[in-house]
């Protein structure tokens, strides 16, 4: 096993012609896909990995400089694809990974046949003519809360992000993976993500993008999906699901999995 595979805990499951790469979002790890994987392994090769900085990765590898932009993650994705000698894949990215996948596809459009984005946002901060859902002061508060008491922050953030109550399995699961991150890394990652602005790169994304989004999402207002749709350089399609929360594939798999499968199986008709 190569060094990249080992560092990112890469797992390749299933067999089939098409390769699907699943990228998880902030505060989770590859286990967030547990509901989806069984439906894919029959006729796809599924590549799972952990983003650097996620709980199961070695914190030693987390280079604060490299990961101070989303490019660092994009290079990681490319490194994994390179090491596994993937020539073309369907990239399913959740949250930040969706944007990371899009970034990587700008560099290497040949590697991505399409990108399925779940709860993606190019910018979380509101701007003059853009509604991202957050004000700077909100983010400052958020970062401050993370700094002062990470555990408490996790406990508070998890139900908000997932959109369920404290005791739901999804919330428990998300709190677990969230708290698995080393606090300083989590803060750095969160800052990178929340302060990122990828809007001007959207037009460079030429790979077809399937934008899938919860009806109600704390981090990503529905208008953001519309924004992505209108600004992508290639074809894109939006589907708003009747689910709740930022991690719909974890919290409401019964709604989300069929949608995802449909988007994986079918391409946008041109």
């Amino acid at each position, binding site marked *: 096993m190569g*060094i*990249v595979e080992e*560092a990112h805990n890469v797992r390749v499951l299933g067999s089939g012609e098409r390769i699907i790469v699943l990228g998880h979002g902030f505060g989770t790890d590859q286990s967030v896909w547990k509901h989806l994987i069984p439906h894919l392994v029959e006729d796809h090769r599924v590549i799972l990995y952990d983003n650097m900085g996620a709980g199961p990765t070695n914190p*030693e*590898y*987390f*280079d604060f*400089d*490299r990961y*101070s*932009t*989303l*490019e*660092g993650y994009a*290079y*990681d994705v*490319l*490194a994994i694809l390179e*090491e596994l000698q993937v020539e073309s894949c369907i990239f399913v990215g959740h949250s930040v990974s969706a944007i990371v996948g899009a970034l990587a596809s700008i*560099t*290497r459009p*040949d590697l991505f046949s399409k990108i399925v984005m779940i709860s993606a946002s190019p910018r979380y901060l509101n701007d003059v003519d853009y*509604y991202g*859902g957050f004000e700077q002061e909100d983010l400052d*508060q958020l970062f401050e809360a993370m700094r002062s008491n990470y555990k408490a*922050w996790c*406990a*508070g*953030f998890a139900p*908000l992000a997932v959109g369920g*109550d404290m005791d739901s399995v999804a919330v428990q699961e998300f709190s677990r993976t969230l708290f698995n991150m080393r606090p300083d890394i989590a*803060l750095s990652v969160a*800052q990178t993500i929340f*302060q*990122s602005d990828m809007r*001007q*790169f959207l037009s*460079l994304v030429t790979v077809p993008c399937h934008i899938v989004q919860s*009806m109600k999402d*704390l981090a990503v*207002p*529905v*208008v953001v*999906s519309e924004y992505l*749709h*209108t600004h992508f*350089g290639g*074809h*894109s*399609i*939006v*589907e*708003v699901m*009747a689910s709740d929360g930022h991690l719909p594939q974890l919290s409401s798999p019964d709604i989300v999995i*069929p949608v995802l*499968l*449909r988007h994986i199986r*079918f391409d*946008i*008709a041109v």
Partner: protein
Amino acid sequence: MRAGLSTIQQTLTPEAATVLNHSIAEAARRNHGQTTPLHVAATLLASPSGYLRQACIRSHPNSSHPLQCRALELCFSVALERLPSAQNLSPGIDPPISNALMAALKRAQAHQRRGCPEQQQQPLLAVKVELEQLIVSILDDPSVSRVMREASFSSPAVKATIEQSLNASSSINSSTIGGGLGFRPAQTANRNLYLNPRLQQQQQGSSPQSGQQRTEEVKKAFDILLRAKKRNPVFVGESELESVVRELLQRIERREVGDGPLRNVQLISLDKDFPLDRTQISMKLKELEVLVETKINSCSSSDAGGVILDLGDLKWLVEQPTGFGSPGPAQIQQQIVSETGRIAVAEMAKLLARFNEGCAGRLWLIGTATCETYLRCQVYHPSMENDWDLQAVPITARNPHPGLFPRFGSNGILSSSVESLAPLKSFPPAPPALARRPSENIDPAQRMSCCPQCMENYEQELAKLVAKQFEKSSSEAKPEATRSSLPPWLQMAKPDIVKDQMQAKDQELMWKQKTQELQKKWDDTCLHLHPNFHRSIGSDRIAPPALSMTSLYNSNLLQRQPFQPKLSLTRSLGGTLLMNKSQPPNQHSEREVTPPGSPVRTDLALGRPKISENSPEKNHNERIKDFAGCISSQQQDNVSDWQKDKAITPLDADSFKMLFKGLTEKVGWQTEAASVVATTVTQCKSGNNKRRGGAARGETWLLFVGPDRVGKKKMASALSELVCSSNPVIIHIGSQSSDDEVLDKNFRGKTVLDRIVETVRRNPFSLILLEDIDRADMLVHGGIKRAMERGRLADSHGREVSLGNTIFVLTASWLPENLKNLSNCIPVDEEKLASVAGSDWQLKLSVSVKTSKRRADWLHDDDRVTKPRKESAPGLSFDLNEAADAEDDGREGSRNSSDLTVEHEHGRSLVNVRPSTTTASVQLRSSTTTPLSYELLNFADETITFKPVDFDSLRSKIASTIASRFAAIVGDSWSVEVDTETLEKIVGGVWFSQTQVVDWADKVLVPSFHQMKTGLSSAAISDDTAIIRLVSVRDSEGQQNSEEWRLPDKITVAVDNRL
């Protein structure tokens, strides 16, 4: 798996296709597994009049020395040597195109297409990639640009040159799109360029891997030794050559080489000081020849013998020996060196030829050389490689030079080369540059984000570095001093002037890299040592990335702009069409999840009405709350669960009864109000509230009006306990500062509305008591009114919060006009009572001479002096007389502004303030706000009027209780006198603390009366001359308790013995 070769060639012009074919042939010749961009680049360079070669020469900032191109070719051949050869490739098949080359070809195609706007709509295959575009794409390949950089060429510069000539010569508008984007990893060089540098370090650190690598190199050397041609390996590399050679020789000595011709070889190592000068070299070589001959002959008896001659470092062939110290012109020295070397090369060649022709045994050579030495050998002794049958074996260093594989993120791959190309920078298509952080390259200090302490350390180390650097450059006389620098070989081969320039340039580069590394180091250290510092500048640190990418892409953006509108137009058209098309196949699957046949827009529209307006904001607000204090969310959730259960069960008649019962228990004297409250709450909870026309809203607005402060408060807390099972949240709207029970420090500096919003956020299932709504200012009033109308409350930042299931209780002391007539019974003196009872006081039982006429005025005087004035309410109202009350009453009726002004002035003067002032001032405020407050009346779910309390009955009850207790204990002969003020205070205490008079009397009065009795009997005071007084005195120590209404819990008993 890959597009067929013919398909690819269709996309190329004949010229380009020829180059590709040659490259594939070259790869096949070298037995390589894949055809890579390196092959193409080498092929392009190989043709003597080649376009690439010319561009390279032109691009080079210094002169166009032919040796430079020679060096470039050498670098490419070395790089090609490093490529792994095919393991299981059948000989007839051409090596397939590698991913990197495929990407380069695709890039070239894209460029070609983009280059000619009029052909934009043409099908892909109609566009033929011209040679120039192919070259540009090849130059973009990271492996190619790396090799070029090793030879001191910059691929962006070369590219720029080509593009410039393209722009000048033809109308084809070639662009640089993707220059920075399309780089490919040098997969063929076994290095993943996207790799996290930390991982790379890890990789290098692991010893087993490097060991394995070494054995592979040794194995390769054996393979070479066994060949017929080119069989003498020279290990070329920057480091660890010794160990490889040692390993090789050890294996030969241990006979671990199998049954080949190497089985019986013997080793001869040249002395370290072998060639001293020209005169000696011939002699030495003769000696060597003899030695070899004897060795070979000695083992010629056995079938396959041989000698391996270890030449050691080949440096001596091209460098002047250090012992040869006579200072002279450099040129002469140079000549001497070449002279010595030439002799040695020639002699050695003869030696080799002689033994190889003979069949008795064979002679092998083994040597080591740095890249620099090897290249110089090739330059100075052009025939050596052939005559000696040499084969270079590259040894890759375990630790690549920092400049060779720079980290992503810290400096771009090409940043340094770009930096060195100042003259070329002004070209219009400036290399898009992987130099992602301009600021970083321009001024290192700009991006230092260390804390002062680390900054200091950094500067110290920097100073050291400077000193070292200076030392180095001052001792620059020896050329080998720069051996470790990046592309050093050229400088050796060039005239001296060029060399100096180059060195200076290289050093600058190196210097830059070193400082960057140092900076990086301290940045990292600081980040870990002083996280606090970085927190504070955290946002600053995050800011640059956004810019960095801009610089990467903006050339693209510019390029694209003209097409933008067109593109988006077609896309949006296509989008809708496409949805309709794509829907049918979707319908059969997962129908239930999304409404079939609903296109994107419907989906979005469905979400919009509520989501886009309300929920994000709501979420947003809730989120903020929880980010600030996430612990409370836990509570909230618990409560919410509880509350949900509760809300589900319909509040029917039973619950009304329960509620009513609970309320009357607590506030027995306001039964009517309790009944109305219970009714309203029951109705609201079950969904029929009067004002909202069926719209189900969780919150309830109750307006408590009337004079009974205590009753209202108690009613609210009882309600809160019954419905929310928690204490009410009390927010004073009027005068927050003076009489807040708990001034939460979290609320400091926040407006009332903020506090309400905060409270609702924290717990949307609570009861919030807004006291003195009639004192609210316009803002608060308006905010609350809007909240009543819309069910949402906005704070001062405009952030709204949904009111959830909150019960709001607003209290106001005014009475609605229609209820006015009810209130003319006993005037309300609650405020006055409060002021009286609220100040600190104690009770004192004292015995004094009975005087019928004179009251104990001295005591009162004393009292007056020491008693602190309350800000809002004068505490001096011991003169409670009917007249004042009557006056008060009258004033209440007349809401006349001029009258009020007078009252107001009275209030300010604070001299001999009359008891009515407080009430009057309340009315002053209430009267001004009444029109507003009356609006609230209409929006509230219900207005509950609290009747004024009849204090007289309480007063008489207290008086009689005191009297009866006293009589029972002390006896009828004595009489107790309670002055009006004291009585008033006790009444206030009893009222506000809601204690039972009897309880208090038993607990406090009775013991003191007993004490008094003992005192009296011992002092033998006659009962007719003295009188016992129960008086109030100011409490000296109880200052801090002044917030709470309370009755004194003990009574000081003073028996004056003089009487």
